[in-house]
């Protein structure tokens, strides 16, 4: 259950629309089921009342939409930002990807978002309703008469299990209380892979990446991937490919993509959330974050606007590339 309610958000949005502060609202729109929520633009209170939702399935991070929407929208856009979303928001500002003046950011607290796959693993197929308003999720299916009660903690999305911050790093206004940066265990999985032998690591990633169908969902959802033209879609880049013809191209795409967002990735976890093949792509990005933290000092992309990312920075006594492998033995 989320601490703030849909009604609070609608009231806030409606009042900002009414007093002319904003001309539209970027929010979550209800879907066919209770979990398939779509990002949408709302322009009136009626639209909000009819279709706006706020529940445990509002995982979508709106930051990236601001790049295109701020160019198109006449007035200011109201955007609701969960704590993790605010990091992406700041990172995009650092990279001058949208005009801050055109956005009215309302920070909202988040109790963690649910992963529908985990819900289904417990409740089974044929979900006809999910009620998030109580202490537990009440999941009704066509196969059972009584709803299955699920503790929200048991179905948290991976990124929420390892939530790094409940603190908003950007907003014009905050609804509810701000939280703190969390000392998460998000690097544990990376460490587990690091501890494997090279052969095991190779087998692990070969298996994971072999499932890639190059649908580009990871890239297209990624708030760091806002290139006007992606190198992988540019016939003149010598890198273009539309499908992973073999295991090399799978690796090429994912290594280069992770490298391009290294130091810029806020670890929002959207890539893994949207991957239709369930490739744990966040483990690539997190590897870079973990390395950056240990090689160059802790750095959280998006924690502040204008910070100098580790790959556009250096010190004269940085460690040598040949030394990166030695750390594991320490």
């Amino acid at each position, binding site marked *: 259950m989320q601490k703030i309610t849909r009604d609070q958000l609608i009231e806030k949005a409606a009042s900002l629309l009414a007093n002319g502060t904003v001309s539209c609202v970027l929010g979550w729109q209800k879907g066919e089921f209770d979990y398939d929520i779509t990002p949408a633009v709302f322009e009136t209170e009626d639209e909000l009342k009819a279709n706006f939702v706020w529940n445990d399935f509002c995982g979508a991070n709106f930051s990236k939409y601001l790049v295109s929407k701020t160019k198109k929208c006449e007035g200011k856009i109201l955007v609701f930002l969960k704590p993790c979303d605010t990091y992406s928001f700041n990172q995009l500002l650092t990279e001058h990807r949208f005009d801050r003046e055109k956005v009215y950011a309302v920070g909202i607290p988040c109790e963690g978002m649910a992963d529908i796959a985990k819900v289904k693993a417990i409740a089974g197929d044929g979900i006809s309703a999910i009620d998030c308003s109580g202490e537990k999720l009440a999941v009704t299916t066509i196969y059972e008469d009584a709803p299955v009660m699920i503790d929200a903690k048991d179905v948290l999305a991976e990124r929420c299990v390892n939530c790094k911050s409940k603190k908003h790093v950007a907003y014009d206004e905050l609804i509810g209380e701000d939280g703190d940066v969390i000392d998460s265990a998000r690097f544990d999985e990376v460490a587990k892979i690091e501890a494997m032998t090279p052969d095991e690591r190779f087998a692990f990633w070969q298996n994971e990446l072999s499932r890639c169908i190059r649908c580009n969902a990871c890239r297209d959802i990624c708030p760091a991937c806002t290139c006007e033209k*992606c190198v992988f879609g540019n016939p003149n880049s010598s890198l273009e490919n539309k499908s992973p013809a073999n295991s090399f191209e799978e690796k090429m795409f994912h290594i280069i993509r992770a490298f391009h967002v290294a130091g810029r990735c806020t670890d929002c976890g959207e890539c893994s959330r949207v991957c239709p093949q369930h490739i744990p792509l966040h483990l690539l990005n997190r590897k870079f974050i973990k390395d950056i933290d240990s090689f160059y000092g802790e750095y959280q992309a998006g924690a502040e606007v204008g910070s100098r990312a580790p790959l556009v920075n250096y010190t004269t006594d940085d460690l040598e590339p040949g030394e990166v492998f030695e750390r594991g033995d320490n």
Partner: protein
Amino acid sequence: MQRIGVFVCWCGSNIAGTVDVQAVSDALAHEPGVVFSTNYQYMCSQAGQNMIKDAVAEHKLTGIVVCSCSPRMHEATFRKTAAAAGINPYMVEIANIREQCSWVHKDMQTGTEKAIILGKAAVAKVNLNTPLTPGESPVTKRALVIGGGIAGIQTALDIADAGFPVDIVEKKPTIGGKMAQLDKTFPTLDCAACILTPKMVDVAQNDKIRIFSYSEVTDVKGFVGNFDVTIKKHARYVKEDICTGCGACTEKCPMKKVPNEFNLGMDNRSAIYIPFAQAVPKVATIDPNYCNMLKNGKCGVCSKVCAAGAIDYTQKDEFIEEKYGAIVVATGFNPISMDKFDEFAYNQSKDVITSLEFERLTNAAGPTAGKLLRPSDLKHPHTIVFVQCVGSRCDACAEKGKEYCSKICCMYTAKHAMLTRDKYPDTEVYVFYIDVRTPGKNFDEFYRRAVEEYGVHYIKGMVGKVTPEGDKLKVQASDLLANKQLHIDADLVVLAAAIEPDKSARPLATMLTASMDTNDFFTEAHPKLRPVESPTAGVFLSGACQGPKDIPETVSQAGAAASKVIGLLAKDKLTGNPCVASSNELMCNGCSTCERVCPYGAITYENKEFRMPDRTTAIRRIAVVNPAVCQGCGCCTVACPSGAMDLRGFANSQIIAEVDAICK
């Protein structure tokens, strides 16, 4: 499609000895784009070059591959040949089959195979080469010198001497800088004012030099040869062109309790003041923080006594915009603050002073008219302790002080000690040091004289604590050579404070996009070979802004910087290196990543209206590379995630073509 000619050089037997040159030219003849392939004994000879020219004409070549020695040897030669033959010099690529092939491999088959592959890589690259033309930009024949100390003065005089106009911007009301505050100068002990003030007068009288005193640089745009600089002239409330510097106002000014910064606050001045007698320009300045007229409109004495009518209480800050071809940074240094060095009791006792304060105490124009008197009670000190390396050569992890050696302290302390003993033989002088560093002409002799002739007590060891007690300063120190603790009751303690770059340097560096080290000293373009140039083209370094320096070094660097400026201003046009970065505006995200890694500040951003794919128009931020400033390292091309940024002559596609050719 290119029409490429391949020319394989034997280099006598240098190449032909280990590489079958015929096989190489035969193999390369089949490569895509190659229409002519041959080999010859010495391609770099006149005959060889003529062969290339003839082949260009006969086979209508558009590109040339020379398989020969290192491009570092003859790339320029063959580019000229190409130009003479009528093709763009950048359509030439060299396959290095001598230094990197025939000379390092012994076996003919191995050498030949490798030479063919290197040739193929060069052919693959030329296939993607495009003609490049160096850009040209005009040069504004005027220099700006920022800082009016001895460094800035010398640089300006030298540039003006060559006939170019120079402007000096000095933030204080007068030029002269630190040297004007010094008493004598080592190792010859001539008086600083005697050698500096004539130069200051030269500056004032030189019709090529303009002085903007009491002024600061607030904005720098443009690039080498074409800087647009905004200078803020602070209101001094005195009309500079009318004031005669007679000093009547300073005498009559009722507000006389203003700490005198020229004497480091050891005495007072009036609210309207001329910093010192030989100031240039010699005009009065009203200190708005103390002037009653400016603060609450009550007074106006100076205006009444000024016969020339130069006082103007309504004066406003003025902004001047000027164009320059070159900028010299001469922002100098300051002693560091002693606030963090509690152990020396600097803030507890007036009799613990810095070396610069000591200079003023011994200067005839100083607060004591040159008599060495203790600031606390104006008594003559009989025991003086000099402490070396206060804040210099500190541990990297120490919270206070600097890691580097401030370089000048050993010598000026020897000078202070010697002068003290010379004038006041009844004074005991102790100098505590870590090392005495005197590498300079007549420097060590100077120091030895202090010890041997003047009987200065040099003690290797550090002072641990200074405690004021009664009218004495208890100095607790260790003598490392004798391995014992010393306790000295001193009358005066002089701290050789480390020096650091002036605080104005960091914001200035940002404006100039010039790089700095972690200590805020400006970085040279090359530490050995280009020591007076900053990596940013057209920005030069003079004096202590680049690193600690004494006067002779400062003056020689000032002259060197001037000669570089003169070399630049003597040109009518600058011809750039055409192998520079350029951004494809259609792909550019405007994210600033490239700008952040550019060591030259060659990248700026502009907002441009674009027609978007969906038929709308939108304003997008895009990177623009200034080809006159870019040096072509290519760092930005890798920083750019979209690949919008590419490097001419070493484009992504060209390097990839080489990789592919080699790995075939």
